[in-house]
């Protein structure tokens, strides 16, 4: 299905967020996730299913002032 990953359209297979993170290569990465602008804690990824067109944000540590 098609989702929006960090603002870019993306074809993905997995619908469960935890699987999707694997699929996207973020397994074990130091990142936080939000689906449709709501924070999804790491512990809740397994119970979180994405649907066509959902917006997924995967954020990582970056420089800041």
């Amino acid at each position, binding site marked *: 299905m098609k989702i929006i990953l*960090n*603002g870019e359209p993306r074809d993905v297979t997995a619908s469960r967020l935890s699987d999707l993170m694997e699929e996207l*290569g*973020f397994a074990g*990465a*130091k*990142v*936080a*996730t*939000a689906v449709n*602008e*709501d*924070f999804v*804690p*790491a512990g809740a990824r397994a119970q979180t299913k994405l649907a066509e067109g959902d917006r997924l*944000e*995967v*954020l*990582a*540590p*970056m*420089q*800041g*002032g």
Partner: protein
Amino acid sequence: MVMRGFYGHTLANPLMLGTAGYPSPAILAEAFRASNAAVATVSLRRESAGGAGQDFWAMIRDLGIPVLPNTAGCHTVKEAVTTAHMAREVFDTPWVKLEVIGHTDSLQPDVFGLVEAARVLTEEGFQVFPYTTDDLIVAEKLLTAGCEVLMPWGAPIGSGLGLNNPYGLRAMRAEFPDVPLVVDAGIGLPSHAAQAMELGFDAVLLNTAVAQAGDPAKMAKAMAEAALAGQAAFVADPMEPRDMAEPSTPVIGKGFLE
């Protein structure tokens, strides 16, 4: 000297340093080592396929100092709150440098959104470091909302103009004798950092002046030393400035030679 704690944490020294805009990660690390900065501010950004964020994090972690995640660029309460939650999970800290930006050019805080976001985040267990103005009433509301630290700007972020309104900062210090105060933003030179501490502030937070200096590590160290010097001067009880001159060398006992 009263050492005001930051949510129970005592700063190793009065410098909080940003991690943005350095020529290279190596130079960033060098700047932190050279300055012995007590806190490193960081942010959250979209992770790239290459996992740039992972490398950045490894480097920051190696600094071995507390990180203070910010909500830079957030313009709404919801955005700031969500960002704070994501940051807490990633950085595993209750600390958050709360920025709710109200003005894109000056990056002036939206004090309305700021107070609201501070209230929400405090209730959710965060320890909020609010980036605010020198407005005393806003400050009062932030404290009521649960903030135990205030971080008024000295001048617009990245301007390097120093303290645009020392009077306002002095009034803030006088008004809140027990609250840790940090000048956040605007500091461009060590003399600015020293001046902030001479006013009785507890720390300075800066980034651009160090990252964009020709020699960031040297500048970082200079900022830390100046902040410490200003702090020491405040503690040492400085002389009162005098409108008229006074001889430092005693006149009495001077030989008669003319």
